């Protein structure tokens, strides 16, 4: 059972501003039935351009309904410029906090608000979509720009946190490497630069062999074994690494691709940019 705050419970059991508006000035929708939650937010502006009325409809769990209800309370009386700077954390704070696994509910609120504001300014859906960028998580339809924004605003550091906040990566997990890259892109830029500077320019042969072996064991073999394959290190000459594929990999028509795209790129990443992979056929 989730540990919801009294405020979350209050907004769930007694949601404010449920429904729709006649001739709204802004309408925003986020989520879908397939994703498990969805929010439709709309508002009307007064003569001074302040939000005078807001309504919502939510399909989703208790905290999704509470987040939407809270959001409508938060935006009434604000100008679009004031409403625009509301972050998902603001929504969560307003509710006295949300369980970390439920932070995506607050993100859905912020995104629906963003869409509604764009809509009221006459921005078309395509433009908004373009602003959101490329879809990274196919399961839940989350884009790179959405993920980057949430990482920045909430100082996220792990894929798990990104999943809690956006749902991205919570399905088939195929996008986990991409999310890791996005995190590294935001918070790791300085750290990465540091790492490169500290990395020894020249490894001894023994160090290099050890590193290649380690990378094969820890990074590459587990992935191949998951598909019933395996790989064996045959020999190393300078930067040429000779391997043989085993198990399912040996008969796999895309083994060439596995070698180049996966094995070589991992070794380049962990050992040296100059590594070249060669397959030894039996």
């Amino acid at each position, binding site marked *: 059972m989730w540990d919801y705050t009294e405020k979350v419970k209050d907004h*769930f*059991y007694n*949601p404010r501003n*449920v429904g729709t508006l006649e001739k709204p000035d802004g309408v925003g*929708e986020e989520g879908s*039935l*397939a994703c*498990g*939650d*969805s*929010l*439709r937010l709309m508002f009307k502006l007064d003569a001074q351009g302040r939000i005078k009325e807001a309504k919502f*409809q*939510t*399909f*989703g*769990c*208790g905290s*999704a*309904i509470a987040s939407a209800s809270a959001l409508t309370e938060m935006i009434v009386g604000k100008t679009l410029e004031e409403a625009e700077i509301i972050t998902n954390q603001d929504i969560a704070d307003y509710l006295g906090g949300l369980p970390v*696994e439920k932070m995506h509910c607050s993100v859905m609120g912020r995104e629906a608000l963003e869409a509604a504001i764009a809509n009221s300014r006459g921005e078309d859906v395509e433009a908004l979509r373009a602003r959101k960028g490329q879809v990274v998580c196919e399961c*839940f339809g989350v884009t790179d720009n959405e993920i980057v924004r949430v990482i920045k605003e909430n100082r996220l550091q792990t894929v798990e946190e990104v*999943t809690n906040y956006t*749902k991205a990566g*919570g*399905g088939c997990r195929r996008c986990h490497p991409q999310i890791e890259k996005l995190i590294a892109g935001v918070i790791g830029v300085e750290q990465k630069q540091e790492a490169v500077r500290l990395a020894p320019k020249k490894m001894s042969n023994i160090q290099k062999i050890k590193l290649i072996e380690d990378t094969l064991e820890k990074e590459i073999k*587990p992935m191949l*074994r*998951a598909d*019933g394959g395996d790989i064996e290190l045959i020999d190393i000459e300078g930067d040429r690494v000779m391997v043989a594929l085993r198990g399912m990999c040996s008969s796999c028509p895309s083994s060439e691709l596995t070698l180049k795209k996966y094995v070589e790129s991992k070794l380049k990443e962990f050992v040296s940019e100059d590594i070249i992979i060669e397959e030894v056929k039996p």
Partner: protein
Amino acid sequence: MTKRTVYADNNATTPVAPEVVEAMTPFFTEHYGNPSSMHYLATSSEKGIKQARHNVAQLINADPSEIVFTSCGTESDNAAIRGVLAAVPHKKHIITTRVEHPAVRNLCQYLNKNGYRLTELSVDKLGQLDLDELRETLDDDTAIVSVMWANNETGVIFPIEEIAEMVKSRGAIFHCDAVQAVGKIPIDVKQVNIDLMSISGHKLHAPKGIGVLYIRKGTYFVPLLMGGHQEQGRRGGTENVPYIVGLGKAAELALDNMEAEQKRVKALRDRLENELLEKALDSSVNGDRTHRLPNTTSISFKYIEGEGILLLLSAEGIAASSGSACTSGSLEPSHVLRAMGVPFTRVHGSIRFSLSRYTTEEDVSYIVEKMVPIVRRLRDISPFGRDELHDPK
């Protein structure tokens, strides 16, 4: 006015029967000896275990020597599957289903990453297996087939007798996770060719923390817990005497009440199901309604999400469960309903009511009375289904 408690989540766990608590108590206070010791206190502990073993054996028509006490259903599943694989190390293929409990499913998927081939049999939209698929995937390399007797989410019962025959005819070992079935429907291991079967105490009114692995005589098996000679060397560790006694009592009660209970609980379940289907529009039952546990119903309410339903039910004192993503602790909704191809529009709004011998007619009326307005209330908040629903108010 005090809030009513209506417990309709018996597939998750059951309340411990008062008779069970009563039977257990002396084994905490008086008969606390270690059954392996050599004194009078050991004798009374040992007698308690012997009686319990007898009772559990009777419930499934096994020989008492085939009953091994464990700590839970998950341990029984692990002991069965790992124990058989260790005993036939030359065979590297496992068959199970896409709708198994995580205790079997996650274990098999782990083994699959560590040198075993794994076949997960699919189910149709009623949640039933295609036995031809099983026949085709069984081969000489198949070490073990693990198929549940009844599904925890839908209550759907698999044709275990036929499956057992098919598995045995190909020389593989058959394990059945019967955690949801034992105590709810008659089970006779002399009629059904099962090699190993898992039972969990807390699903049949014994406490949590006690389980059974039935191991048919002559089955190759390497113990999961190696240690002392307890359970004839098949499960090391000092016997959990009070809990074993409790499970024994629960088994006795289940057997005594089986026939009457099955009929009564089924009638209650059917009434609950039919009234909800009739009164809460756009709802549908998940799974095969003819081959099903008498106590379980999984109903999907379109356009709304399960967690919201559960929270509102809970506020009325009603405990149930859901296959929705938000209640699972993960973002993925029920793997069982998805394996059945239940559309997302229905998966997220699925609610399972699971009844027991303690459920009354008044309980069922109360659930229906509360559930109908809850569904309407959440649909009023939902952006979906407005055009599709025609509520005759």
